[in-house]
Structures are given as structure tokens and as C-alpha cells.
């Protein structure tokens, strides 16, 4: 992991309060990145924000030497990130966390199940999976039509089903409703999104091997402060989301 001082290549508002941020990163660093990893971003330059913000890596481009992040304005920190402009300096810890276990996957058809800001990391994952010849079906859940992003991009990977909670776009309901209605199945699934969604997915797909990417409030982002722990299923010990995760095997930790 490195502390990288780089700059913004572009920033774009792609959905309601949702921004696509493209950052310059050199190829040798990009080559070390695994799908599911995240970066830990310093907000502003002064002391007002002492904690960095974790944002998943959505995509990388070796040719352009760029990395893409997609984030939603949630509070004061992401609001400030949204005000970044082309060429502006940005300071990251990169790459953080473990990522999805790409090497061990023995699968033919993988379901990518994302909710809201859990969608971005699944994109780079999907790209890597199809490179390995694995079939990908994406199920993306959003609040409503205005929140939907990256549908076309996922379309380049395979079938895509979009659901909205309020039915203003795609299928009305949750991602698990889509799995029911469309009788979707795969021999593996990867999921990222809000905890209630992950719980529903874990229950629904209890017989399928799955990996979940979790969120937790972070201090250091590198495993040193014990802010971001989750209990293991037996309740006897903890794992750190920032270091042991953010990706965990389904049922490995308590959601």
C-alpha cells in the first residue's frame, strides 16, 4: 500500500448526487489492484477532516493510466470531494483491503448483485471475470430512476437487471425480488450494497458460494486502529473490514 499524491483527470455528475471521478494513477500501481479493493481519500488539505473516506475502485484503465471511482454525496466529506475539479490534487492510500478472490474462483456463471453505491466495485470485478471466460449476470438495485448509473457499462459484461425500490425504473422492488421473479442463479455470487440487502441476499442464496463486500466506519483504513471490525459468525473473534475485508465469504462474519 502507498500514499499517493496525484490529481483529478475528470469529474462528472452521472446520477442524482452521484459523481464519477477519474484519477491519474501510474500503470505499475494499477497492475497491483484487485477488484473489490478500495482507496482511502483525504478530504481537503487542512485539519477540518482528520479521517479519510473509503471509496471502492470501480474501474482502471492501463492505457490512460487512470482509475475510476463512483461516489454518492452523503455528508460533508463526499460533498467536498464532489467539488473537486480537473487537475486538482488528491491524496490517496492505495490499494486498501483484500478484494475479491479472483484466483480461486472455479465458476461458469457468476451473479453480480449490487445496491446503490455498492454497484461500482462490481464493475471492475465483472470485467476481470469475463476476461477469465466466466459468464456474468448483473442485478443492480437503486432507490429510484434518478439514482441509476452504469447500466450501459454493465450491459457490456452480460445480462443486466435493474430494480428500483419505488418502481420508477426497471423492475419494482429489491434485488432479491429480481432473483425470484427472473429465477436467476449462478454457481457463484458477488454482492456489495447496504447491510439489509446483503442479509437478504445471503439468506436467499444460502446454497450458492458467495462473497460480500462490507462497509464500516473507518479510522486508519490499514488495519491499525480497530475501528472497522465485524464479528466472525461464531462471535468469538473479529475481522477488520479495511484489512481482512472489505470482501468476506458469505457467512464468515455477522452482518
Amino acid at each position: 500500500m502507498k500514499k499517493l499524491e496525484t490529481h483529478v483527470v475528470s469529474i462528472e455528475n452521472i446520477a442524482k448526487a452521484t459523481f464519477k471521478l477519474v484519477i491519474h494513477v501510474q500503470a505499475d500501481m494499477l497492475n497491483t489492484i484487485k477488484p473489490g479493493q478500495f482507496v482511502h481519500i483525504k478530504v481537503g488539505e487542512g485539519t477540518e477532516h482528520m479521517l479519510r473516506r473509503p471509496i471502492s475502485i470501480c474501474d482502471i484503465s492501463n492505457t490512460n493510466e487512470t482509475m475510476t471511482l463512483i461516489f454518492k454525496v452523503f455528508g460533508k466529506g463526499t460533498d467536498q470531494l464532489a467539488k473537486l475539479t480537473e487537475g486538482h490534487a488528491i491524496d490517496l492510500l492505495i490499494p486498501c483491503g483484500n478484494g475479491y478472490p479472483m484466483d480461486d474462483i472455479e465458476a461458469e456463471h457468476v451473479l453480480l448483485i449490487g445496491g446503490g453505491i455498492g454497484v461500482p466495485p462490481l464493475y471492475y470485478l465483472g470485467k476481470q471475470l469475463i476476461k477469465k471466460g466466466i459468464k456474468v449476470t448483473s442485478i443492480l438495485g437503486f432507490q429510484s430512476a434518478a439514482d441509476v448509473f452504469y447500466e450501459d457499462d454493465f450491459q457490456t459484461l452480460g445480462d443486466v437487471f435493474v430494480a428500483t425500490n419505488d418502481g420508477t425504473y426497471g423492475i419494482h422492488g429489491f434485488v432479491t425480488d429480481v432473483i425470484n421473479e427472473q429465477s436467476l442463479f449462478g454457481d457463484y455470487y458477488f454482492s456489495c450494497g447496504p447491510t439489509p440487502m446483503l442479509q437478504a441476499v445471503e439468506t436467499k442464496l444460502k446454497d450458492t458460494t458467495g462473497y460480500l463486500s462490507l462497509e464500516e466506519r473507518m479510522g486508519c483504513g490499514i488495519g491499525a486502529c480497530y475501528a472497522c471490525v465485524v464479528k466472525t459468525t461464531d462471535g468469538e473473534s473479529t475481522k477488520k473490514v479495511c484489512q481482512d475485508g472489505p470482501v468476506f465469504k458469505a457467512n464468515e462474519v455477522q452482518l
Partner: protein
Amino acid sequence: MSLLKVELPGLALKNPIMPASGCFSFGKEYSQFYDLSKLGSIMVKAATLHKRLGNDTPRVAETKSGMLNAIGLQNPGVETIINEELPFLAGFDLPVIANVAGSTIEEYEQVATALRRSDIAAIELNISCPNVKEGGVQFGTDPEVAAEVTRRVKQAANVPVYVKLSPNVTDIVAIAKAVEQAGADGLTMINTLTGMTIDLNKRRPLLSNGVGGLSGPAIKPVAIRMIYQVYEAVNIPIIGMGGVRDAEDVLEFLLAGASAVAVGTANFENPLVCSEIIDDLPFVLNKYGFDSVTDAIGKGHIDA
């Protein structure tokens, strides 16, 4: 770099900079960023007698120029720390300061006794953790209780004992004098201020523990004030901390009376911060006309 050297009980420091307890675990993670041998020392994460899982999450929250934490002393227990964590640090050229916590005076004693079998250079006696129901801050708010824990741990330990003071008290000088009299070899200060933030959506305190410890630049003026007052009242050295993030902050702590300085929260903002401060410190000392670190200690006082 002899201008950075400081000699404290049990600690021959090549420079006065060390990470603060709980903010640097046992060093492994930060060793990805720089060679830990560069540090003056390291204050490792708190040890209790048995493994503790700590509080529920959320455990941290950001505040303006600071943060709240309520980790709740999560640690694998002193035996595991001695066997599995401290050996990693033996590979570096720096004295290790172990942070000792407990729920009862006996537990403090037992942890200190267990640590006799380790290679640490000093103990930091944590009687000021605000984030656990039992043990911690109540030992640090009453001078007599603080003195008693100090006395017992001094007897149990085979290395110098630095007592970590809580800022959440009416009279920090009274506590400092009491633990000095009880045999403390030094003081470390300050631990976090007890604070809270409320989640407006959930209508509940944001941290699962309710209250948490406030750290970071926000609390620096309180740290400087307390160190300044305690320096005038005791004759044992002080390791200062609270909001340090650059070499000028370090000089301010030295002038207030600290002999060495620990860096906590700023590691999260910048994992290289201790290393960068060590590089900058000679220039900052020079800029303000000091020949060495020891030359600056206490020089902010009227009669210095």
C-alpha cells in the same frame, strides 16, 4: 542527529517522536510506509489480562479537526501480545513502550507482571481510557486511586512506569503530583477528552458506546495547557500528546514542558506523519533558534 536525542527513564531516544498508543497497533501496518527504526519509540496498543473484543461498531466518528473513538480496549490479551505481536518489533532498533490497562488494580498488576517476560523498555499505565464500562478512566480521576494503581504497578513491573493522565478532571496537577509521589517515573498526557456526537437520522449517539474519546488538533490547546501546568508542579518527565501533526506542534509541546511527543490521530490522516516530522524537526528547531531538542524543553515558561 544527536540534536534530536533525549534520555528518559528507560528510554534512550534517538529522537523524541513516537506513535501514540492505540493509533499504531503493534507497528506492522505502518511498517509498509517507512522503516520503524526511524522512530524514537513506539507506544503499542493497550494490553489487558485477557482478550477483549471491545465495543460494538460504529467505533469512530469524525468531528471538526478531531475524531471520537470508542474502540473499547480491544486486544488479544497480554500473553498473545508478548508471544505474537512484540516479536515483530524486536526486529527494529527502537525501545517499545507497552500500554497497560485493566478493570481492577489486580488486573493492572497482573498485566505488568506478565510483561516482565517481554523485552519492553517502559510501561505506559493507562488509567484514563474513557471508552470502557469498567476500568480505565475512574482510576485516573481520583488522586488517591491513581496513586494506588501506580504504586502497585511499580512494584509489579521491572521497567520504568509512565502514567497516562486523563484530561477529564478538574485538577490535573493534583493527579500528576499524586502519581509522582507514588513512584511514577514519568507522565504521558493527555489521553482523550470525553465527547459525543449524535446521529441526526438515527436520533441516537453515533457511537454504539454513546460517548467516545476526542482526539486530534481540536484538543491541542487543552493538552498544551495541562502539560504547561503539570511541568511546573512535578519533577518527572512528560511525554506529551494531543493533536500533534507537524514539527511546529512538536516544538510547542517541548516548550510547554514535554520531553518527547507522541502522535496519534494524525497517523490516520497521513500514515507517514511521524517519519515526516522526524525529518522536519531539525529545521524547525533551527528556525526558532534551538540547538537541540533538550535545549527546547520547558522553554515556554516564564522563568525558563
